[in-house]
C-alpha cells in the first residue's frame, strides 16, 4: 500500500464518550446454544481508548462473546453495558427483559463491528456502503454523508475505488471499506471479529495498518485475532479465553513471554 492512512477519527468528528471512562462492562455473562454452554461467566471491562486483543482456541467462545456485546447473540445470564447503558435488555422489577428492537438498534448504532467475511453490501458501491447507515439510521443529510464517506475512503487509501462495487475489490480492500463503514457511524467502540483471517497473506498488512492507525488515534477496540505482531505493537491488554471463560490476561509482553497458565502456554506454542 502506497498510501499511509492518517487522521481516521478526524474524518468522522466527535465520538460519544462514556462518563466514567468505562466503555464496556460485562459481568457474569452466560450463553447457551441449546444445551451447549458456550460462555460460562465472563467478566470483562474495557476502558476508553483501550485496545483489547482477545485470543483463544477455536470454540473457546471469543467470537460469541464479541457478538454478545452488540446483542447479535442473546445472553442467558449476566449483564453487558456499553457506555453505561445495558445492552439488549432493560431492567423491570429487578428482572432483565429483552429490550425493544428499536432501542437495541439505537445501541448497536454506537458499536461498530468488522466481520471476518467483510459483509459489505454487494449491491452498493464502496461509497454507498459507507453512506447507507449514516443516512438511514442517523438521518445524516446525503451530501454530508457523501463528504464523510469520501474522506474516509481517502484515509483508508481507497480514493480510487469510490464507485467500485465490493465484488470488484480485493479482500484487503473490502475489509478497509468495512472499517470505514463502521467508522462512519462514529462508534464509541469497534468490535473486530477475526478481521484478517479470511485474507490472503499479502493483504493482511494493509488491513492491520488501518487498525493500528485507529488504535494510535485512540479508538476503543476489542479485537479477536491471532495477529501477535498487532497485539504487541498496539495492544494494551491481551485476554486469553478457553472453554467459555477468561483464563488469563495481561499486557502483550507479559502474556506472550511468560504465560502463567498451562493452557495459555500450549495455545501460544501452536500459533507463535
Amino acid at each position: 500500500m502506497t498510501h499511509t492512512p492518517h487522521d481516521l477519527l478526524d474524518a468522522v468528528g466527535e465520538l460519544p464518550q462514556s462518563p466514567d471512562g468505562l466503555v464496556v462492562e460485562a459481568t457474569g455473562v452466560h450463553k447457551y446454544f441449546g444445551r451447549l454452554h458456550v460462555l460460562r461467566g465472563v467478566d470483562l471491562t474495557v476502558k476508553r481508548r483501550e485496545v483489547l486483543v482477545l485470543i483463544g482456541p477455536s470454540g473457546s467462545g471469543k467470537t460469541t462473546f464479541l457478538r454478545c456485546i452488540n446483542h447479535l447473540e442473546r445472553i442467558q445470564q449476566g449483564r453487558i453495558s456499553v457506555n453505561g447503558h445495558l445492552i439488549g435488555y432493560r431492567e423491570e422489577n429487578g428482572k432483565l427483559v429483552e429490550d425493544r428492537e428499536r432501542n437495541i438498534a439505537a445501541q448497536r448504532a454506537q458499536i461498530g463491528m468488522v466481520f471476518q467475511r467483510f459483509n459489505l453490501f454487494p449491491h452498493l458501491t464502496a461509497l454507498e456502503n459507507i453512506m447507507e447507515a449514516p443516512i438511514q439510521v442517523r438521518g445524516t443529510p446525503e451530501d454530508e454523508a457523501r463528504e464523510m464517506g469520501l474522506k474516509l475512503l481517502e484515509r483508508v487509501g481507497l480514493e480510487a475505488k469510490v464507485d467500485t462495487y465490493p465484488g470488484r475489490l480485493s479482500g484487503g480492500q473490502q475489509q478497509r471499506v468495512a472499517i470505514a463503514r463502521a467508522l462512519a457511524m462514529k462508534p464509541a467502540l469497534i468490535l473486530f471479529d477475526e478481521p484478517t483471517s479470511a485474507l490472503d497473506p499479502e493483504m493482511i498488512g494493509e488491513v492491520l495498518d488501518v487498525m493500528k492507525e485507529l488504535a494510535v488515534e485512540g479508538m476503543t477496540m476489542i479485537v479477536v485475532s491471532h495477529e501477535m505482531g498487532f497485539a504487541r505493537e498496539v495492544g494494551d491488554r491481551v485476554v486469553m479465553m478457553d472453554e467459555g471463560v477468561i483464563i488469563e490476561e495481561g499486557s502483550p509482553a507479559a502474556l506472550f513471554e511468560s504465560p502463567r497458565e498451562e493452557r495459555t502456554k500450549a495455545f501460544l506454542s501452536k500459533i507463535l
Partner: protein
Amino acid sequence: MRPRPALLVGAVLLLVVLLAGCASQNTGQYVYNWSIFWDSVLRPSPRIVNGIWLTVAIAVTSQVIGIILGVLGALGRLARFRPARYAANFYVWIFRGTPLLVQIMFLYYGLLVTHIYSWPDLSLLGIALPSAIQAGIFALGVNEGAYMTEIVRAGILSVDPGQLEAARSLGMTYPKAMRRIVLPQAARVVVPPLGNEFNNMLKTTSLLVVVAVPELFVTFSQLNGSGPTSFHPFELFLACAVWFLLLTTIWSIIQAVIERRLGRGFGGESPPGLFDRLFGRFSSSGGAH
C-alpha cells in the same frame, strides 16, 4: 447448443400452415379466408385492441398484487412471530392447493349469489371497472401471491445471513435492514422466476372467460362464435396466438432490461440479451466464459 425458442416456434407455425395448405388442396372442405388473419393482426378492430389492453391491464395489476402479497407472505413465513407464520402458511396452502378456475368461480359467483360480497361496478379515473374484472383481478392476484410467496422466500433465503447481521450491527432495525439491504439483493434472484410468472399471467388471463371478461382470448372466441368472421377458428386463433406471442416477447425484452440493472455490482456473466434470449446464445466469443 441452447434451445432457440423463437426459431422453433417459427418452424412449427410454418409447418402447420404448410400442412394445412396441403390438406385443403386435397379435400377442399375448409375455405381459408386469410384476410381475417391479416386484418386481425395488421388492422385490429377496436374490439381486438380493447381485448389486448384488457389482457395487459389485468395481467399487470394482478401481478403487482401478487408481488405485494408475495413479499408479505414471504416475510410472514420467515417471521419469528408464530401467528404470522401460521397465517402465511395457511394462505399459501389454500391458494396453491386449489385450482385457479375454482377460485375465480367461487370469488365471483359464489360470493355473489350468497350476498356475502357482490363486486360493485366501479369507475376509476373515467375507466369503467365492471364487477367481473375486479373479481378476476382479485382472484388472479391472490392466487399469484401464493406462488410469489415461495419465490420471494427463496430469494430472501439466498441472501447471505451476514448481510442482515452487518445491517443490524450498523443500527438498522429489522424492517429497515430487510427493505434496504436484504430485499434488493433477493430481487436479483427473484426476477428470473418472476419473469416466468408474468409470462404465465399474460396467458392465464384467458381463464377469465368463465366470468365473461372480454380479454384477448375471449374476444377472439366471440369473433369465432358470431358475426362476419364466425367459424374461422384457424385464422382467428392463429391471429390470437400472434398477439399473445407479441405480448410475451415484449415482456421478455423488459425482463432482460430489469435483470441487467439488478445485476450491477455482482459481476460475472451478464444475463442474456434479447437476441440470445430468442435465438439462443451463438458462441461469437469462441464459447469461452
